[in-house]
């Protein structure tokens, strides 16, 4: 069975279905993270004191740099396909995956340091919201990595069969990935710096 409008644009929306689909998904993600940011505000307003610079700021800053670089490599992975440069695309996609992996490794070091100090989510309101927000964000990073691994591995076959559809898949993965980067751009100052 052929799924319509995977490549060609629907006459009513002017968009391929996948494009509208990923944006609607991202809209739901905004609400998910929005609810948690709102919870953060509520907890912070109600707290008698709030820790400042308690987290590892240099490690958080390094992770911010990693995600920004991964956004650049992701958009380059898509741009390479548009320019028909398959080898460059593979390199950029692999680089994005590796940057995400280093991000998670850094995060695991950070979590481990907290756990060694007995700082679990039940330790304080700040740590409870910290683990909730960064944990959910980490799951999103992992989700993006799984999709990237698929598109680098078995999913890459589609390029030969239907290059335009494959390019669209990379574009949608990129949109998700930039959103994950965008969330971190707000999480970093809110949790690490303020």
């Amino acid at each position: 069975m052929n799924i319509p409008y995977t490549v060609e644009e629907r006459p009513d929306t002017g968009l391929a279905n996948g494009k509208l689909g990923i944006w609607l998904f991202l809209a739901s993600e905004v609400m998910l993270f929005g609810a948690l940011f709102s919870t953060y505000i509520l907890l912070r307003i109600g707290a008698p004191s709030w820790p400042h610079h308690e987290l590892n700021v240099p490690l958080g800053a390094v992770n911010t740099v990693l995600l920004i670089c991964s956004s650049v490599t992701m958009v380059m992975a898509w741009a390479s396909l548009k320019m028909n440069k398959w080898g460059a695309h593979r390199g950029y996609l692999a680089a994005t995956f590796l940057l995400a992996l280093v991000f998670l490794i850094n995060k695991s070091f950070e979590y481990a340091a907290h756990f060694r100090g007995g700082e679990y989510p039940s330790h304080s309101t700040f740590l409870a919201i910290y683990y909730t927000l960064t944990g959910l964000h980490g799951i999103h990073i992992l989700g993006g990595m799984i999709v990237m691994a698929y598109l680098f591995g078995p999913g890459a076959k589609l390029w030969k069969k239907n290059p335009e559809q494959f390019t669209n898949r990379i574009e949608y993965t990129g949109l998700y990935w930039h959103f994950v980067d965008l969330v971190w751009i707000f999480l970093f100052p809110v949790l690490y710096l303020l």
Partner: protein
Amino acid sequence: MHSDSAEVQKSIRTYMMVGGMLLVFTAITVAASYLSLGVALGITVALLIATMKGSMVAAVFMHLSHEKKWIYGALILTIVGFLVLMTVPMFTVMDTIGTPIHVAAPAGEHPAGH
């Protein structure tokens, strides 16, 4: 959305420039957090820079600077929902339901603990 290979080629310079600017803004955010700006100004500066960075990611990397109206429509609804979520904590502060208006002082005590 770019579809032409030549146009994409031209955009690469923009992607690199935006990537560089995002890194510079990150450095500024970290540096500003070590200055004694006070809580209110510190939060304002950090969130202002984060908003600028977020806008650059959305506009350039996510191509929102030139998208179709259906996507803008979905995003406007999302922004409205997001703003409602952000105002929820304010409602909890303003909420006075269940708070006694006139507390009767126990016999032998002055009202309001005086």
